[in-house]
């Protein structure tokens, strides 16, 4: 399973978005607003989920804004950080 797919499945199950399946989500979909429709409370929860599942720390909302631009951006952030570690 690709990291992108894994992230979609994790977001859907952990944030309880029962009306979507991972297949319906495009890699380029934004996480907030028009895309998956997440909000600011989901954003901080997602910071914690990334910490919990990938041991990657997102320090503040500035960093979060970039990393959460899309599924693709999030996957790229995780890969880049894992490469550094």
């Amino acid at each position, binding site marked *: 399973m690709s990291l992108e797919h894994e992230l979609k499945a994790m977001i859907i199950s952990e944030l309880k978005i*029962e009306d979507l399946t991972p297949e319906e989500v495009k890699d380029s979909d934004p996480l907030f607003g028009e895309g998956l429709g997440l909000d600011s409370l989901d954003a901080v929860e997602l910071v*914690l989920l990334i910490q919990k599942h990938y041991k990657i720390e997102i320090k503040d909302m500035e960093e979060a804004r970039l990393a959460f631009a899309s599924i693709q951006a999030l996957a790229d952030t995780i890969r880049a950080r894992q490469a550094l570690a």
Partner: protein
Amino acid sequence: MSFAAAVTGLGCICAAGENLPRVMAALYAGERRCAPPRDFTAELDTVYPVFNCGLNENYELFNSPTAIRHPQSVTRTSALALAAAREACAQAGLDGEQLATLRVGVCLGTTVGCTLNDEVFYRNFKQGAGPAIAPIQRYLANNPALFLKQALGLRGPAATVANACSSGTDAIGQARAWLRAGLCDVVLAGGADELSRIPYLGFVHLLIASPEPCRPFDRARRGLNLGEGAGVLVLETAESAARRGACVLAEVAGYGCANDAWHPTAPHPEGKGLRRAIDSALRDAGIEPGAIGFINAHGTSTPDNDKIEGRVLGALFPAGTPVVSTKAYTGHTLGAAGGIEAVLTVQALLDQRLPATAGFAESDPDCAITPTARNTEIEATAALSDSLAFGGNNAVLVFRKDKGQRTKDEQDPKDIGKSSVSVRDAASTMAILGIGTVSALGCGVASLAEALRRNAQPAIQTHAIQTARGLVNVPVFTATPEGLDRFMPKRSLRRLDKFVRLALLASFLAVEDSGLELPDRARVGVVFGTGYGPLGTTFEFQDTIINDGDKCASPTAFAGSVHNAPASQTAIALGLEGPCQTLTTFGHTAEGVLQTAEAWLREGLADLVLAGLGDEFHPVGAYAATHMDFEQCSWRPGEMFSAFLLGRPGEREEKYGNIAAIHALDGADAGHAAADIIARHDAVILSASSRRAGRLDADLLPSDRTAVDYSSFYGCSPTALGMDLAAAALALQDGAPPLSASAALACAECHEDGSRTIVSLIKDGAQ
């Protein structure tokens, strides 16, 4: 008509100092005591500084007017509240005798003080280690308002307000409403909260805690610092102050509150609710924005709060109106903040001087306002203090300098010292327009009426609870919120816990039952009450810490664990933008909720009020019950939520008759007084809010009156009076046995402290 409550005493304890003179000296000297948490640690990569209070270990409790029997059972929050209350009473000249003989109420805001967050206990409970229940007994003995009432020997109303970060401000507004309604002559009002690891981890994971001392309204602000403390004001009617010869320091001239009905944690982007709360407070005080000499802002230093609050203040007040954030010196003390800030606002008004907003260096054009950069001499006759809270609550107070000297009134004080009972009746009538219930008897009033009529079996689930004596089976009256998707899209339910769902369903059902279209949603208020709050999510948040560590505490669970989550989610789901309040005073909760609804309707703060009462079940509750004479008493946990759409009588079709009075009785003769009131009704429903379930002075009850106890239908909870009220309203409507042919019904409860609450219901037109 405007109403001014006299401020005759001030008390404050916080990181800046242990009494008000020391706090003010620290503020004017620019001293900030922001340091790593002293009493707990967290396994995080960053230490987030806090404002620890210097209160010493034994809390100096023994100087209190009445002795504290078990100082080790006093929480830090209670001790802080007591310290501030004692200071305020001393300034107001209220001695122990006056406190015990005048009609003195207490209304306090808190967040930590009403939350069962003992991590060690819960960890041991989860592991089946059979922990001692002392932490639960401590929790039950330390509801802040009830604690102060007992510690100071007061005989007026007591309510704890749990409106998250606006609690203290709302508590003062509530206290003023009591004085206006004549429920008491004096109120100790404000807020108290202690630092705790639980909210510390919550705020850190919401990414709004600052790793450095906070910088209110500064361009480089990075978030808030938590703090602890208490702020208490003595408020009284002008007549009471004159009678006692008390010096009036200032007046609480106006109060406003309004909900954003927008989001559980984020403020409305245009500060919609805050604007309405400010408008409403200014209108209440009868003054123009230009007459406000300075503003003590909420100013938490989070990027969002300061931006939105600053823009609203910049838009509503003339340029150059001085703004200060005293959180720079106290930290964000959550439920205490409104109380502390009210005290500091009044003192600054007396000093005609504002401290510099420490930490502020550079204006943020995004914020629209610039706070005080240095100590500032002012010429102010009025000041405003505002609070914004999770759940979209906004609360605002307007203070005015006292207009002038009064001569001492030589009348005899109207004390109740010779009377053995204190009676507080809110006698104005409310019409019950719609009812929604969710309980072990199903969802909706039709199923409740049917079940009571047919003597139906309630839904009981048995929970096997591990205790020191082995497994104990605890039967629990279980409520299941079914059919909520009829009212809300599934997507918007995803984050909502069971307790919120119970509240939402009962609320939707009540509105549906009324058959009313809610016309102007800004004119509909929400007041909810709960004994224990969202227990499930409170412990779920601790589960995330226990299971995954301090680094993985869930911010969503934390936001859902606040007591006002059900009320604010209801305001969001129904789009209700009027005042929004949550009270949590154990068995006394229903009394406060109904009084609040009555005051909002009478004072015109709202045209309709959705009043809700409920509690959910958690195994910790059953565990505690098995340790407290469980076998001997008739207390059985019940899950329930009841909601009532209430209005002024005569304005709309009245489906269920009226709530004619809310009687509250204190004192040695409360039992006889209660029996006298009950005798004026055809029948009485004995409420099961405490372990005295259904045991209301059987010997005093008139033998020709029917008395029923419905706890065998829906169980017991601190908010069971709500279910009883629903049952009574249904009985008046369709006259099912054993309450048939009733025109007047009483719902009565006897509290653990011996006080009584009686709610009178009459058929429309009956008296």
